[in-house]
């Protein structure tokens, strides 16, 4: 079962076993512009994405 990354209304599928940072890079999402959360907990960039994870990405950039 692959893992899911959710950013606003978009859902991306990624393979488990990769780090958050490499998943973001693969999807061309700047790591600086989001926070990754799993079950409400913040994840650091080096954490491994596990089977069936649903990772919510919180966009941190606002228009100001």
């Amino acid at each position: 079962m692959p893992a899911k990354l959710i950013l606003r209304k978009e859902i991306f599928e990624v393979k488990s076993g990769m780090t958050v940072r490499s998943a973001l890079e693969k999807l061309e999402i700047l790591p600086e512009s989001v926070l990754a959360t799993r079950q409400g907990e913040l994840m650091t960039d080096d954490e491994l994405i596990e089977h069936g994870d649903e990772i919510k990405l919180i966009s941190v950039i606002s228009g100001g």
Partner: protein
Amino acid sequence: MKCKTCGEKAAINMRQHKLALCKEHYLSWIPAQAQRFIAKYKMFSPEDKILVAISGGKDSLALWDILIKLGYQADGLYIGLGIDGGFGYSDKSLHFCQRFADRRGLKMIVVDVAETYGSSIPELNSKTPRGKDKPCAVCGTSKRNLMNRVAREGNYDVLATGHNLDDEAAVLFGNTLNWLDNYLLRQGPVLEAEHSGLVRKVKPLFRFYEREMAAYALLKGIDYIYDECPHSEGAKTIYYKEILNQLESNRPGTKLIFYLNFLKAKERGVFAEPEIRKEEMKACESCGQPTMAPHKCAFCRLVENT
């Protein structure tokens, strides 16, 4: 990754500081850093009465939270712009601010532009002769005027806004791309009141990355409005922030150095004084704030026309 302080699992890693912290230590690190910057840049002291401009977004609510935690006397100011955008943007953002203030028993001043002046920001904008599709210019003029007005009327010593490093670096990037020397001269974390009609302005979060403030709000359980003002979409600021974040991804610390070195250059006198200084500007006949116009300032003329 492990917390540098306690060795537990880290909640956040800040590459620009080579620092990873767990939730508990992050939540104490941020206010401690804020206090360092407040002192270093001589922003205010515990005796000062502070007015915090709040929008319902993560930065301004986090700022208010931090100031209260540090023991400062800080009241909130919410300006109701009357922007709907199909999802009740202004109503929603007021709701987040109200709830934040109520839960903590804090004082919040609400100024609703439509109630006070008869027209909302989008309405004021459509009535201007140069009415553009985006109300941002009218909105900016109005917010500035009202913040000064409320701060002076309430005898506040200082107005604090939630601008973070990404906000400031993006503005600096725009100002530099266009060599807007007057703007560059006036950009900074502390703006003295250069005219009797103005209040002193400070930005206590200016050294924190936007990502750090979002993490603080999240870990602290601060509910904020995640949706943007509908007019900010496609704004230049976001575009500049993205460019800076691309640089940051390859070289952590780039944004911070860009901004801090600008402040140092300014101290060395790289930018010349403008020809017209604020003290020499006239006071608006109606509100007393500085203006180049002969009688009334842009904001007072704007609300009079309606």
